[in-house]
């Protein structure tokens, strides 16, 4: 699903065309953006959060994911059965940080509920 591209110039322009990304990692200092998707659920549109890269997994789930997802009364934090990133299952330890887990800036974390 992902594709990588080289650095070749593809834009047809009158002059040099080299501009930075508007939401690059460095603009967020020691934080980054993380997206969260509830798999097989279309009630909540996927969300975007700014979090410190030093935030631990347990802080992330309890402070970010739970409050957001629990607006849907069917959400139960205890029933979250599986997390994945770009189709690969992940099993972070509670003390692991977002950086240690390897979530990229603007990466997408997907969870499933039993």
């Amino acid at each position, binding site marked *: 699903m*992902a594709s990588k591209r080289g650095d070749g110039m593809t834009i047809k322009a009158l002059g040099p065309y080299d501009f930075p990304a508007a939401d690059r990692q460095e603009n967020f200092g020691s934080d980054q953006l993380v997206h969260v998707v509830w798999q097989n659920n279309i009630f909540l549109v*996927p969300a975007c959060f700014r979090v410190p890269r030093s935030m631990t997994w347990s802080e992330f789930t309890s402070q970010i994911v739970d409050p957001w997802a629990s607006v849907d009364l069917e959400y139960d934090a205890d029933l979250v059965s599986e997390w994945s990133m770009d189709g690969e299952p992940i099993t972070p330890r509670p003390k692991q940080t977002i950086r240690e887990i390897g979530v990229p800036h603007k990466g997408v974390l997907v969870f499933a509920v039993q």
Partner: protein
Amino acid sequence: MRERYQQLTRGVDWTPSYVSREQMYPYTRFEGIKINDWEAWEDPFRLTVDAYCKYQTEKDKRLYAVLDSFAQGQGHLQASDARYFNALRLFLQGVTPLEYQAHRHFAYLARHLDGPGARFACLSQSIDELRHAQTEIHAMSMYNKYYDGFHSFPRISDRLWYLSVPKSYFDDGLSSGPFEFMTAISFSFEYFLTNLLFVPFMSGASFNGDLATMSFGFSAQSDESRHMTLGLEVIKFILQQDEGNVPIMQDWIDKWFWRGYRLLGLVACMQDYFLPRKVMSWKEAFELYLEQQMLDGLFPDLEYYGIRPPRHVDQAIAEKEYMSHQVHWTFYQYSHAASFTTTIPPEEELDWLSEQYPDTFDQYYRPLYDKAAVMEASGSRFFNSALPMLCQVCQIPMAFTDVGNLGSFTQRFSEFRGERYNTCSDGCKWIFDREPEKYIQAWLPVHQILQGNCGGATIPEVLEWAGIQPGDGGEYKTSTDAENWRAWHQNGVTA
């Protein structure tokens, strides 16, 4: 008239002697389009300045007479319901600023195209677009006296999150070269997709008792048919000029079909949900205007030039069964941060949606509103507290699904220079991958809010920065507009 038109265009053109043609018209070569003979341009309409002014003056006179009498007679009370005005707010915030941008860019083309006939056509369209922006503002300004959400539309258009969808679409065209802009706006927007944009709004106005907007629509109609003619002439002219132009044009048609189609997601939502009296469903409009008129009518003609139907059109055809629902459900949960209100469709409208969309509505979307109704009854109307994930290209929240899997949101991404970019569909990903250098610059509202560039960290601060006032958004049933509407009608204000 024909002779005077010749004098006006060819007659006043000249060959530069102090500078080269390339210096005089510096922007018409870098895109790779080759025009071998500008004289071959068939002028799609032959108007002179005095004739143009005479027609437009007549139309303005008629329009403003209607607007005056409508305003004096409190015509707004004849609308089907105050909820209808949400459709107009979306038009004023999302479409009117595009008319103004079109005015500016056609003025630029009126200077920079090499051929005098093409320059004059662009000049006329530039003046038309300015007139449209003005007459739309005048037609809708009367509603600003009585309803929320009509104030500050230029500021809101620049700053409010979902309005970055139309704004970035047009900015993409403005920042392209002149031939791509004409393919994007004259052909894709004004010809290929125009009926899907204007008919729902203007017929919606007519069905819902909005004489002011309907009159604007009539007044703009003859201009629009000129713009459509220009759109078709532009594409045929470029294709005929050089075989090398064909693959470039095909790429642009592919890109601007999908860009325009995604933008129409807002119209689809308006058409199926905002209009209390329905005109036709989005699906019916799509079948008539896109499948029958364009895919069956136009594209067989273009095949002669080597042009095939746009890439990703099959996905759009599949999506006619559900796109409006996906966009409206997104707006339903985010209307606390919008400049229009939303509500669960009344029972008879839910039934209409079930009838119109028998294969999808009851299975996927009606249950969402049932759930929202339970939440509302328990005192907590459903609003999403987090900011939505946005597509890097169309900038719409990532609420679309893959064909054949409506229960799960589509996720696509690309990597460029070590960073990741998320897109909502194969169409948007394809557009990103063609020109990543362009789309990495996208001013995605959610990312900008989270960078602290939009007035503050809380939703109220961001909304104030965007120009939103209390009452502009949220739930319709408890809005000031709904309350006023009930009071005006109960007290027998209507004749």
